[in-house]
């Protein structure tokens, strides 16, 4: 690890006094080289470090400060009020509904997406033909602009002219005003969530299956576990353990971040039936300008997402990696 600057400065270091130096002194070549290398590193990383601090770390501190104070947008007064904002948030039935709705949404979307994504990945991998065709079709919703697709979904779910109700009516099943009925609004949003993320889970599972060594399937064959189901149970599913854990957490984080469909399709309604955390955060902070309240919701949201990610990075990761 050297660089031109360090090389030239190292040669300019004769011991003028004639004394023999045995220990690296502050001016020794090693030290200087380390210094110039550090200088180069910080110069290169400088802009990124500056923006990381300003755009990530200051705002995180900021959100805590706002959450703990009575500061309002456009108001001059500022004093710390402790946990008052959090007390207000948790006392608010609207927030509790929002939190419960979000959890319910996550609990529908994650298992639904994981199971369907896994099944489709297994089916695609069980044959050789048309693999990339099927992969492309199922992955498409994950790519498409969700705001625009939400508008398409609204047309599909339209109470009178929507394809869904027309189909249901044609085969004699009851229809519904899906997005305006408080019993169906959240489940329908969850279904859209599954529709959007399924291809993502599928692709991650496919990658997981690719990394299973062929030797294990051969060993299973020789050992007698050669029926499809036995191979699944002996090799495929256990070997997908680590990637499954990963898929679950990533999907959970994505599901917690649900916003676009709510904003476009229901605006949290009817009533509070489809209100989710991020929508509450947005509305309180930027529509009602209840800054303290919004910041407290943001802190709660942050706590949930960070916990989920740490769970993945830490405890469970170790358990499913078979080491």
């Amino acid at each position: 690890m050297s660089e031109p600057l360090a090389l030239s400065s190292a040669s300019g270091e004769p011991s003028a006094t004639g004394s023999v130096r045995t220990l690296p002194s502050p001016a020794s070549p090693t030290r200087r080289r380390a210094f110039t290398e550090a200088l180069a590193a910080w110069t290169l990383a400088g802009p990124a470090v500056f923006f990381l601090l300003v755009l990530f770390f200051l705002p995180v501190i900021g959100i805590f400060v706002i959450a703990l104070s009575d500061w309002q947008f456009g108001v001059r007064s500022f004093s710390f009020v402790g946990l008052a904002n959090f007390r207000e948030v948790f006392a608010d039935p609207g927030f509790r509904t929002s939190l419960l709705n979000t959890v319910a949404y996550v609990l529908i979307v994650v298992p639904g997406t994981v199971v369907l994504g896994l099944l489709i990945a297994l089916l695609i991998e069980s044959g050789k033909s048309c693999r990339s065709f099927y992969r492309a079709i199922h992955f498409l919703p994950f790519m498409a602009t969700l705001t625009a697709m939400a508008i398409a979904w609204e047309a599909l779910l339209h109470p009178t002219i929507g394809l869904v109700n027309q189909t249901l009516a044609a085969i004699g099943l009851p229809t519904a005003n899906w997005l305006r009925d408080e019993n169906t609004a959240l489940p329908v949003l969850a279904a859209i969530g599954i529709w959007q993320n399924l291809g993502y889970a599928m692709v991650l599972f496919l990658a997981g299956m690719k990394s299973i060594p062929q030797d294990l399937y051969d060993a299973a064959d020789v050992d007698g576990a050669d029926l499809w189901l036995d191979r699944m149970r002996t090799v495929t599913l256990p070997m997908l353990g680590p990637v499954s854990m990963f898929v679950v957490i990533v999907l959970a984080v994505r599901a917690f971040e649900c916003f676009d469909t709510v904003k476009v399709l229901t605006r949290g309604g009817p009533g509070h039936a489809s209100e989710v955390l991020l929508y509450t955060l947005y509305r309180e902070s930027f529509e009602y300008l209840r800054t303290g309240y919004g910041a407290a919701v943001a802190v709660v949201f942050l706590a949930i997402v960070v916990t989920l990610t740490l769970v993945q990075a830490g405890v469970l990761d170790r358990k499913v990696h078979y080491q």
Partner: protein
Amino acid sequence: MSANTRSNRLLQPSATVRHAILLATGALILVPFVWMVSLSIKPPGEIFGTSFSFWPAQFYGIENYTKALTEAPLPRYMGNGIIVCATILALQILFCAPCAYALAKLRFLGRDLLFGMVLIGLLLPHQVLSLPLFILGYQLGILNTYAALIFPYVVSPFGIFLFRQFFKTIPDDVVHAARLDGLSELAIVWRIMVPMALPAVIAFSIFSVVGHWNDLFWPLIVVRDQSLMPPPLGIMVFKNEEAGNDYGPLMAASTLVVLPLVIAFLAAQKWFVEGMTGGAVK
């Protein structure tokens, strides 16, 4: 391997069953796309009629698409999307690559601390930061400008992380050789490391562009002016204010917004899958 294809594997889904199920699920997945395109070429009479067909009796596509392109400033939205995504991506690569190089190849005091910062940055959901960032934008006086759409994203912890991982796989000797050839550290980043890390750069570019093209949350907060809106926000406003129940043009506009990424995806499926799942470390 022939072992996989031997036919007498009991209970393995046969090829027919496999195709049948996958075609069925694939068709279901595609319904919203098909319906969107179908409505976008139907006249209002057919949309609100009770008939049931994907292809219109009367082709009304030209009228709908013309309306979408003229009544809403859709070309403007798309242009805004391109400007914003391109600027964000350029700045991200500009700031992330040198930092990633320092993290991957240089030894310096505070490197672990810096990498820790990047990992924490990866952990933070961006929406949480929106309120302080909004205030920052307000203080800087840049709300309701392109700058407001761009500034929160000029550095990407994921970009730094991804580039660092890739740079680490490049042998140190390459760096040493470049130094002996007289390249400065900055020249090493741009002339050696980034070209060698092209796959990572492409994957990150796709991840970044897809993410910001599709983003609704942040533009919704900082942009009021229609002439600055990126596609998702624009089409939402179009739906709420102008189109209302005018489904034909609305669906035409939606189709046009979705189209660029879908075409790019179908053209470079492998890269897209890689880019989007590489983002899974987040």
